[in-house]
């Protein structure tokens, strides 16, 4: 039986290798600092797409509030970077403007870089574990879960604007220096920063793919089909759903950290509903069932937005919306689905040729 090359695991890993080798080689070709910084930010978007593909594509959990983990990660990282630049005993200037005279307790742990980074990953993941745990044990799923994530995301946006003395409200936090890891400074406009983000993108994607291929991944795909059936096979569905949701949150938190490092800026815009929904659109366009194609979806849409979108100004959002409708209607599997079909067709004629050969040789046998 001829298999569609799209489903061949060895070929899939080979494809990953080629794609990541090409992406990793970019700084060798160009040393344009601005371009490298922009491409590294695309890497962040790629991570977000991978995270949504993991929970929505594999587990069928539509998450329209991925900005929660992304924003929390970014804020924690920005706070860490801000504290790195503060002299002993001083507090960030915006706090003085907001009438604080001592560092609030919530900022204290971020004085230490290691603790800060750990918290940047731990806080979002722990929140996802609790939020997911509460929702999934109550068997909230599908559109209802999506709406809950959306509502929670809006709540976060409001809270971060309202807590002006601690978050600098709508202005956000812009640490004056770049992140220092021990002795090394990560200059956001450098090939070093690009490779830093790239390595994390590779790690997240490969980890997500390994999870998809494990028994855990198999059961997650099964519960996307029919959670009830999976429950009767003895699996605690809520635990599986919570874990896959929290893992996707962890990846989004890593993306958030990278975003803060690259832009040296974080604001409630990271919690914007529109941004989280656009992550879902990238993934739908690229193909939610494939991690790497979801990532391509993010590159395509964000790339088009930067280079073409500027000419269309506000019409761009209409173009994006229209292409989303087209994909949902005609390409439910996104680009990945299209590639799958084409490769499947390409493999089929071979099969026809094989059987034709077989018949021919049979005929020869008979003739003898």
């Amino acid at each position, binding site marked *: 039986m001829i298999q569609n090359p799209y489903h061949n695991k060895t070929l899939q890993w080979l494809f990953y290798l080629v794609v990541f080798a090409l992406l990793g080689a970019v700084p060798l070709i160009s040393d344009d600092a601005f371009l490298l910084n922009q491409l590294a930010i695309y890497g962040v978007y790629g991570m977000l797409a991978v995270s949504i593909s993991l929970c929505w594509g594999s587990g069928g959990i539509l998450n329209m509030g991925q900005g929660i983990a992304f924003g929390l990660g970014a804020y924690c990282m920005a706070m860490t970077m801000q504290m790195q630049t503060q002299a002993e005993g001083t507090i960030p200037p915006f706090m003085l403007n907001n009438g604080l005279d001592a560092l609030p307790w919530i900022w204290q742990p971020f004085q230490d870089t290691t603790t800060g980074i750990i918290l940047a990953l731990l806080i979002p993941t722990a929140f996802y574990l609790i939020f997911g745990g509460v929702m999934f044990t109550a068997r909230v799923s599908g559109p209802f879960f999506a709406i809950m994530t959306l509502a929670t995301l809006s709540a976060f946006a409001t809270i971060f604007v309202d807590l002006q003395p601690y978050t600098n409200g709508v202005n956000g936090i812009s640490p004056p220096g770049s992140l220092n890891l021990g002795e090394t400074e990560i200059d956001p406009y450098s090939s070093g920063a690009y490779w830093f983000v790239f390595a994390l993108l590779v790690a997240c994607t490969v980890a997500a793919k390994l999870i998809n291929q494990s*028994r*855990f991944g198999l059961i997650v795909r099964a519960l996307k089909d029919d959670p*009830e059936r999976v429950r009767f096979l003895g*699996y*605690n569905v809520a635990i*599986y759903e919570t874990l896959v949701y929290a893992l996707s949150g962890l990846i989004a938190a890593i993306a958030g950290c990278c975003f803060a490092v690259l832009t040296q800026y974080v604001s409630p815009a990271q919690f914007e509903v529109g941004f989280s929904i656009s992550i879902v659109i990238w993934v739908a366009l690229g193909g939610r069932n494939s991690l790497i194609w979801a990532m391509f979806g993010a590159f395509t849409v964000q790339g088009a937005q930067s280079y073409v979108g500027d000419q269309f100004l506000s019409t761009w959002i209409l173009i994006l919306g229209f292409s989303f409708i087209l994909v949902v209607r005609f390409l439910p599997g996104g680009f990945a689905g299209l590639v799958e079909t084409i490769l499947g067709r390409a493999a089929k004629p071979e099969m026809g040729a094989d059987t034709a050969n077989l018949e021919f040789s049979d005929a020869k046998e008979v003739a003898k």
Partner: protein
Amino acid sequence: MIGGFFKIDNIEKSFGGNKVINGFSLDVAENTLQCLVGPNGAGKTTMIDLISGRQKPDAGKVYLNGDDITGWGEHEISRKGIGRKFQIPAVLKGLSVRENLEVAYSREVNALRNMFSMRARGCAEQLDEISRQVRLTKRLDVEAGLLSHGETQWLEIGMVLMQDPAILLLDEPVAGMTENEIGLTVDILNKLKRTHTIILVEHDMGFVRKIADVVTVLHMGALLAQGSIEDIEKDERVRAVYLGTEDTH
């Protein structure tokens, strides 16, 4: 002291004030095939739902091996050793036949441990054996959603076999099967009941006659009669409520 292997004690369930199960009790011996029959609306599927944890009883108890499993979650009851096949075949349509059987091989249910395991130990041999039994060896790579109705029934039977529970709850396993396929099911069930306990819901008395050790007749949510198939067929009350009205040939 709760004796016996599997025991249902005076169970009750109402839906919106309507008593569907009304004080039903049942004792099932190990390695027997017990058929649950009764006219439409007698509460057969509700009974299966109550045993497997999909519904919680209002009163009464369910015991397995002396443990009270009343009110447990579906996955806990399943782990305790009760497997279920649904009335409308429930397979995982988006997964291949092979993947369906792999998921059903639920020896390890811990999510974290499964994250670090690529394949379950012993699964491949079991899968070989069972796919042969249910005649799906050549269909392993087909998406389950593309199977015919008969094949879907087989796949779900295969899934329950992969799960290898102490008690199998089968809800109308031969619905929509051809004579030939029913014959094959009879063979499998007769072999299986030597090592497993089976509770089977069925309409078709012809099929029940071929496999049942004990037949229990359910009427209006309560036990009407119980015994061997010969006793049941002679029973006047059963003829009145069930055979008289339903079985006209």
